[in-house]
């Protein structure tokens, strides 16, 4: 019986092999979804033509004319009712089966997937690569099964790659995952489809499908941005990517934590009454041991980044925060900064 069902599968095949009118070009050579889509499209169109065709025919043939009365016909017929009950049951049965089989293929990741992690927040995607690199866009090697393990930092988002026919919500407080195999190198859209607030429609990213060599070369290079970018620029990237921006603004507005604007070199009053100069050491300590000294008026809610950021990362962040004070007319960089460890900040 399933063999018979499988032959129906191929009804949609001629359509699926070209970039159809209805679906965007696929990045995969095995878009199981497309066949089911076109199968349903064919069935739908035929059924629609049948119903509306009959309706129009009756409308013309039996329109009200002077002198013609409605003819008496049977008011029920079990055989007819059974026919138009059973035939739709069979049709939807076929569609369900096809959809289910393709869905299970889409759900079951093959062994040996290349694993990437995805973190979503309002309103940006972060793709976390095996070597710890975090990027705004998704780069994947072509021809290999890739699995994304995703979670959200705030509200529910939805990851959709139309060209790969995959979509999955990204939910806070749990992991969801999708897998796919992109065969055709190129750039494809990645969109957020679960409504997530003001900038929902700009929460977009690009999927770069690259050959394995290109991918490896890119990843190696991309992970080195600390070395290739000026420290303050690299720090800015880190600030965006590591979630600092959620609590610390750069425009002076107080968030969950103090703003970074113009704080460097200033003296701040702490919750316990002491005054501390915001310098390299204070920033370093605040990243690694956030509870040690809390600026007055803020809650001790930051969690430690010990083990999560490298020394170079911290240096870059310090440079970034420093750069935010340079713009301040009130405060030029002071010399109270202790550069004792003399790390490669300058060039």
């Amino acid at each position, binding site marked *: 019986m399933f063999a018979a069902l499988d032959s129906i599968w191929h009804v949609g095949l001629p359509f699926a092999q070209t970039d159809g009118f209805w*679906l965007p070009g696929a990045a995969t050579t095995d878009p199981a979804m497309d066949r089911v889509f076109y199968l349903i499209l064919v069935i739908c169109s035929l059924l629609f033509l049948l119903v*509306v065709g009959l309706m129009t025919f009756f409308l013309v043939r039996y329109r009200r004319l002077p002198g013609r*009365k409605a003819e008496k016909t049977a008011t029920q017929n079990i055989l007819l009712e059974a026919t138009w009950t059973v035939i739709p049951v069979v049709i939807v049965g076929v569609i369900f089966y096809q959809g*289910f089989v393709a*869905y299970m293929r889409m759900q079951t990741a093959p062994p040996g997937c290349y694993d990437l992690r995805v973190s979503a927040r309002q309103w940006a995607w972060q793709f976390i690569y095996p070597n710890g690199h975090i990027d705004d866009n998704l780069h994947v090697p072509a021809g290999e099964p890739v699995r994304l393990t995703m979670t959200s930092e705030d509200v529910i988002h939805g990851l959709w790659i139309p060209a790969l026919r*995959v*979509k999955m919500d990204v939910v806070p407080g749990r992991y969801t995952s999708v897998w796919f195999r992109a065969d055709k190198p190129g750039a494809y859209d990645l969109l957020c489809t*679960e409504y997530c607030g003001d900038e*929902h429609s700009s929460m977009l990213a690009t999927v770069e499908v690259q050959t394995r060599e290109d991918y490896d070369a890119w990843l190696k290079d991309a992970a080195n941005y600390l070395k290739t970018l000026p420290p303050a620029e690299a720090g800015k990237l880190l600030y965006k990517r590591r979630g600092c921006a959620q609590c610390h603004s750069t425009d002076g507005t107080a968030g969950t934590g103090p703003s970074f604007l113009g704080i460097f070199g200033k003296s701040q009053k702490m919750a316990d009454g002491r005054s501390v100069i915001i310098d390299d050491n204070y920033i370093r300590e605040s990243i690694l041991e956030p509870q040690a000294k809390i600026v007055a008026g803020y809650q001790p809610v930051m969690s430690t980044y010990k083990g999560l950021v490298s020394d170079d990362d911290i240096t870059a962040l310090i440079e970034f925060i420093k750069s935010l004070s340079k713009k301040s007319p009130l405060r030029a960089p002071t010399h109270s900064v202790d550069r004792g460890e003399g790390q490669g900040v300058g060039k």
Partner: protein
Amino acid sequence: MDMMVSSPTPPKSYLVDPPGLRSWLLTRDHKRIGLMFLAVISASLALGATFALLIRTELTFPGPTIVSTGHIYNRLFTLHGTIMIFLFIIPSMPASLGNFVLPLMLGAKDVAFPRLNLASLYLYVGGLIFFLLVLVLGGVDTGWTFYAPYSTSTAAPVVLAVVGVFILGFSSIFTGINFLVTIHTMRPPGMGWFRMPLFLWALYGTAIIQVLATPILAITLLLLAVERTVGIGIFDPALGGDPILFQHFFWFYSHPAVYIMILPAMGIVTEVICVFSRKHIFGYKFIAYSSLAIALIGFLVWGHHMFVSGQSPLVGMIFSALTFAVAIPSAIKVFNWLATMYKGSIGLAPPMCFSLMFIALFGIGGLTGLFLGSLVTNVHVHDTAFVVAHFHYTMAGGALMGFLAGLYYWWPKMTGRMYNLAQGQISAVLIFVGFNFTYFPQFIVGSRGMPRRYFDYTRLLDTHPEFTFYQILSTAGGFLFVGGLVMVAFVLLRSLFVGRKAPANPWGAATLEWQCSSPPPHENPPAPANVGDCYVFDDFCFDESAQGYVKVP
């Protein structure tokens, strides 16, 4: 018992008896309550349609068009959705048309609990006020689905909106209880269950959903409000809650709710097709049972809104199978309607125009539902403009067309005035053409990659430059569609001033509401001792002098 004095002057109509504004505001007469419901519901429709046009205009061109930010746009589509669903479609047919017609069709003097009925109206108005308050306070931006944790974290006045919907839920439950009890206990002797007009079966199915599903919505919204104000940690993942649980709660109501919207429309279409084809309904029992089947199976398919939410594949499979099961009763209805038209004498007055439009548009809506019921295709089109097109084909192309068919059908009975039939037909053509131009392009852009709830699609144009063309088409259609709706209002309101007096039975229908004067007297006439088959039209002949049908013995 009843004194049937054949007086020379017919009894005064319910519209003027008893007189006075106070008698209207405190009335317990289902006809007046139905009419007042019609007025407030039409106002909500106008409000919802205004938001729809704003959304459409904004989307015409990429980038900001008439509103500057997504912040405003998100409020527009949320208000459009919540107003259209909770304030318009759900109460549209049961509370206004159903309220007016149900007791008359049964030959009952009123619904079982007239005071509850009036309370339902005032609760509706209360809910409406909450929505206006939300509007004044800047609107909500959660989408009509109120998904947590966005709804628990946004700065918008979500609690107000949620309380508004909560109140509207009670209004809906009261109507449902009233209809169930009236149909159960107040059918006249001689009208067995299978002698009832099929519109009543549809309302019965609707009422079952209203009383069974709405309480779950009520508790969901209550919990959401408490989650927002106190933070009990049931839905909010930051407090250890489960946001998917919220979706289960929400859709357990909101999927059956689409059948609250569509079942009465199907009932209206059934009545209209018989009357205007001058044919006995084909397959009475199948249509009646299919109403019940839709009402009951409709409860078990809610998870098809959640195929990509993180729901387990096992549960997804169950929901997909059940979703396909619920398609069958709808198909049965359509085929029975076609069989009814066969060899009939089909007249194309406005109610019939809208009923035929219902079949065509709901046909597209239902058939595209197959893409959404099927697991694998759902993944691709979920949360895209394809879904937007699908549910507008079912809700606007289905429920709204059914509502308009019913409105045109019962308008002479409700107001005692005939409208201009040709103008009514023109409004139907405008709506049909406008509707398809509005929503068909959305299927195309949706499956090609246009998500729903997108303020700006500029960045999609690199890969899809054709989107702008379809959006322009869609917006032009939208204005035509709303123009058609304005014309409906014009045709109907004009009839109040220049329309000729409506005969008792302008369409030659055999159900009981057409056997009394138009508009009916304050006191509904009692049901005849022997209620006949309400789908036999042989005895009704067109009488030129009355411009309506009269019964010949």
